[in-house]
């Protein structure tokens, strides 16, 4: 079973080098991670680092331009969620792997239509664990409420979920066991939590619509 952290930010964006992240991730039970700001896919200490790009999409045009400029160099492309129209457009656009930051948008911005699009197109929705550990008070309650809603939609429509620490430092990482515990807060059981930890591989290595087995 794969265990992948869907977003980490190594040095220079964060304060931890990629090799140090590899040492820590291995001790915490991961086998791969999606790292932003790295040149290409690499491997240290048995941890595979996929190249990730986060597109802070304010408008669909920006997302389209960013994906065009990326030219397939990134293994995982993540787009930050916005309003309802934007989310629906992003989820149907080819090349997008993960929709991030659903906890921060309005409740109606990710509805059953968007959920169905995500399931049909094989786009995953990211669960950011840092909101559960770093936010306080009402903001944390709202975020947990949104994520619970996303889990409910995922069960019904069958789109993939991924989990990310969004760590800029080793201090932001949590073990796979702790991640499983934290995911129970939003209604996922142990087997579902294990599937969520392997969600990135499910999205990246998804089967193509047409595959030529023998020529």
């Amino acid at each position: 079973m794969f265990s992948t952290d869907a977003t980490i930010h190594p040095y220079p964006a964060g304060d931890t080098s990629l090799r140090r992240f590899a040492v820590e991730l291995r001790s915490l039970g991961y086998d791969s991670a999606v790292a932003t700001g790295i040149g290409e896919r690499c491997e240290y200490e048995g941890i595979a680092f996929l190249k990730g790009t986060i597109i802070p999409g304010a408008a669909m045009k920006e997302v389209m331009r960013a994906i065009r400029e990326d030219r397939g160099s990134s293994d995982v492309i993540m787009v930050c969620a916005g309003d309802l129209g934007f989310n629906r457009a992003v989820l149907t656009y080819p090349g997008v792997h993960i929709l991030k930051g659903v906890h921060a948008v309005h409740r109606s911005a990710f509805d059953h239509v968007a959920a169905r699009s995500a399931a049909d197109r094989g786009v995953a929705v990211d669960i950011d664990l840092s909101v559960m550990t770093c936010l306080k008070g009402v903001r944390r309650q709202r975020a947990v409420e949104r994520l619970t809603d996303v889990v409910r939609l995922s069960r019904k429509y069958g789109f993939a979920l991924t989990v990310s620490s969004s760590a800029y430092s080793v201090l932001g990482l949590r073990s796979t066991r702790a991640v499983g515990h934290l995911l129970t807060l939003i209604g996922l059981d142990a087997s579902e939590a294990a599937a969520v930890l392997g969600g990135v591989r499910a999205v990246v290595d998804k089967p193509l619509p047409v595959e030529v087995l023998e020529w």
Partner: protein
Amino acid sequence: MVKPRPPTMRTNWRYISARVVPAWYRPDPREVYYAVIDAATWMWGDTGTAAMQPVVIEAMPGLVVIRCARGHEDALEMALAAVTAVNGCSVAIHPQRTSGTLRALRRRVPVPAPEEEEEIVELKGESYRILGKSGQKVDLVKDGIKKQVSLYVTQEDLEE
């Protein structure tokens, strides 16, 4: 003098040892207790935290031992995952082992290595103080006028 309870009437405890990151940080047991209580109260409320009865038994650089009532280990581990700072300093607490007695726990948990002398290293043209070394891991800090800048690297990064 109060007569001690018979063994069957005593509370059954569980002891959890947890790794503290960064390893050089010297945690104050009282401050760790406040941080754990804060996280547990957010997650389980006052009644849940009261049932858990968390107590910090021991806190040393790189390691804390926390006690809770039997049956609440998972809840306490979940609360520890939500601890992000102790007394204003960013830390992470990773539970390692759980045991029914302190003796069994101490037998299985490695004692953190003693501190080494502070060294100065050069990295990308800037000098950093080494705060802690553990295996390949090296924690650096640069003292600035306004704030300290931490950097977490490996021995290999320094040799490059």
